[in-house]
């Protein structure tokens, strides 16, 4: 067992950190307040290949498709300075571009993947609906076959990247087998007539990332845009989300790390009762707990990535990673604000933003409760020895 990063991974980490601190961090605050990603940073992220991290070079990516640990490192470093960017590229890569590479046909890769990997187009994964959240089976958006095409009708909500995406993976109901719905995933080009973006959500945290309602009115999608097979949408969605959770977990690790670093810095600088507050046990305990939590999340995340790269079933561990890392980030951000005292409430200190951003991690792509459900179901069915 080897816990050290290889030289290439160290370089990816170092360069991404330098890039993130140099380009993303200076405008993170402003982007949060404007609820919009910075256009210049967007261009730079494109040039740097961050939209194609886990895609092979022949499709315009960085060639790290077999090295999910590197994808984790990159997402973590981006998330460390700005959770909004961590989500934007994380979601784009993990639950849109990567599934098209993994499960798509060569034709689909040529038509959609290259533009996604190069960042010419942003991608999104659309599952959630008004009545289908934690219960993914509740999908109502329907697709009806019409010759060589399918016609989609309905709407999705809370779609991360929804408003800025041009390539969507849309989970639609294509039939019913007894009490069970039959779901299928369609790759939808947003320039297709009948598609429109509805409400752009005004959120508590990760405000610069786009979360939108998407409306489909007689949207015609050709048969060859089906990802995988007709009727396999539910199982495929679960696989896609397994990988997506690694990305969310990584972004949360980055956020937790940022909260920890800010707290350490402040604890050494802030003087009360004649000494730095870091000398007080009350603060020390918080710092230790934060560090332990963040590191646990990181280790589980890397383990899930390792299992993924080695062809093992990583579904259980990725759920654990997402659960632990997101709760660690929330805990770390919570403590960070507490350590900062009154200053922690102020926009002048980034921990205020971390606190708001952290809450997202516990909710989207499966709430903490759903992760616990997934974890417990597997354990109860297969026993504890599957770990």
């Amino acid at each position, binding site marked *: 067992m080897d816990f050290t990063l290889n*030289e290439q991974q160290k370089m990816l980490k170092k*360069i991404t950190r330098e890039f993130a601190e140099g380009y993303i961090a200076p405008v993170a605050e402003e982007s949060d307040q404007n609820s919009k990603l910075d256009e210049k940073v967007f261009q730079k992220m494109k040039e740097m290949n961050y939209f194609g*991290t886990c895609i092979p070079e022949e499709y315009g990516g960085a060639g790290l498709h077999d090295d999910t640990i590197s994808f984790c490192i990159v997402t973590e470093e981006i998330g460390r300075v700005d959770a909004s960017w961590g989500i934007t590229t994380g979601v784009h890569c993990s639950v849109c571009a990567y599934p098209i590479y993994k499960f798509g046909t060569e034709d689909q890769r040529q038509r959609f993947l290259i533009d996604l990997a190069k960042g010419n187009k942003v991608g999104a994964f659309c599952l959630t609906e008004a009545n289908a959240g934690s219960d993914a089976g509740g999908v109502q958006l329907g697709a009806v076959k019409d010759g060589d095409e399918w016609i989609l009708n309905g709407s999705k909500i809370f779609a991360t990247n929804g408003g800025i995406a041009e390539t969507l993976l849309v989970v639609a109901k294509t039939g019913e087998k007894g009490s069970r719905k039959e779901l299928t995933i369609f790759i939808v080009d947003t320039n297709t007539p009948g598609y429109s973006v509805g409400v752009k959500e005004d959120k508590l945290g990760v405000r610069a990332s786009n979360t939108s309602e998407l409306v489909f009115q007689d949207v015609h999608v050709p048969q060859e845009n089906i990802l995988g097979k007709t009727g396999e949408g539910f199982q495929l969605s679960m696989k896609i989300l397994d990988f997506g959770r690694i990305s969310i977990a990584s972004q949360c690790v980055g956020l937790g790390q940022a909260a920890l670093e800010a707290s350490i810095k402040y604890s050494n600088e802030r003087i009360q009762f004649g000494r730095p507050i870091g000398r007080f046990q009350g603060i020390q305990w918080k710092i230790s707990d934060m560090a332990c939590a963040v590191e646990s999340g990181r280790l589980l995340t890397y383990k899930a990535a390792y299992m993924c790269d080695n062809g093992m079933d990583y579904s259980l561990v990725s759920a654990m990673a997402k659960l632990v890392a997101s709760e660690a980030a929330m805990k770390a951000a919570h403590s960070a604000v507490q350590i900062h005292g009154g200053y922690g409430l102020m926009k002048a200190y980034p921990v205020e933003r971390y606190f708001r951003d952290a809450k997202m991690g516990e909710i989207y792509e499966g709430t903490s409760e759903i992760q616990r459900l997934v974890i417990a179901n597997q354990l109860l069915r297969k026993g504890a020895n599957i770990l």
Partner: protein
Amino acid sequence: MKVFVCIKQVPGVSEVRIDPKTNTLVREGIPSIINPYDKNAIELALTIKEENGAEVIAISMGPPQAEEILREALSMGVDKAFLLTDKAFAGADTLATSYTLALAIKRILKSAKNKKDYLVILGAQAIDGDTGQVGPELAEELDIPQITYVQKFELKENKIIVERIFRTEEVVIIETQLPALLSVLREINIPRFPTMSGIVDAYTKKEVISLDANELKPDKRKIGLNGSMTEVWKIFIPERKAEQIIIKGTNEEIAQELCRNLKNDKIL
């Protein structure tokens, strides 16, 4: 055309600190980086490659760990990288360093079709030593023209036209032919970041070639400590103790007292 870029691994100086309690250097967690000026040199070389076509070759002399900065250079888009590493090279001052770098450049040029079609670029100085001497000394060793402190560059057929700072107020535009050596200022460009795919290429498709004293066959009197005319006699943390008088009192008293003192010192 070959463009050689000589780069150096340095400690991130901005993070070097003195521990005020022990009055010693705090060394924990100081990262090693590419000398920032050298990144500008790499950027210029890559721009020349993109605009005129060239093979960009990075060379660094240093311990085996210096491979890291050569990988970073490769990640940025440099074609080939050479690491000159040998215990015999250690302790080199700028004379010995420039001699060793010149050996490597000459060796690489041996296989070139046109042995005069090359350019050498360095950062104007390294942030650890701040000497800026290796460039001119290397140019002398290679017997080629040098232009130091360059802030603008243009290549027109074999002619190089550059802007060099002369003093803070004056800029000189100079022209020379290839081969030549340039040392560049930070103002000349903004170095690119290695892209993700650039990094992957640097570790999977490119290599860092190590050259030791056996391969470079130097005159042993000219390398390392033996080839260095200067030696570090001592390194110390500057003492900064002045005879201090802390002036106390009300603001008015302080102002009066200070003026009185400055008058006594014949300054006011």
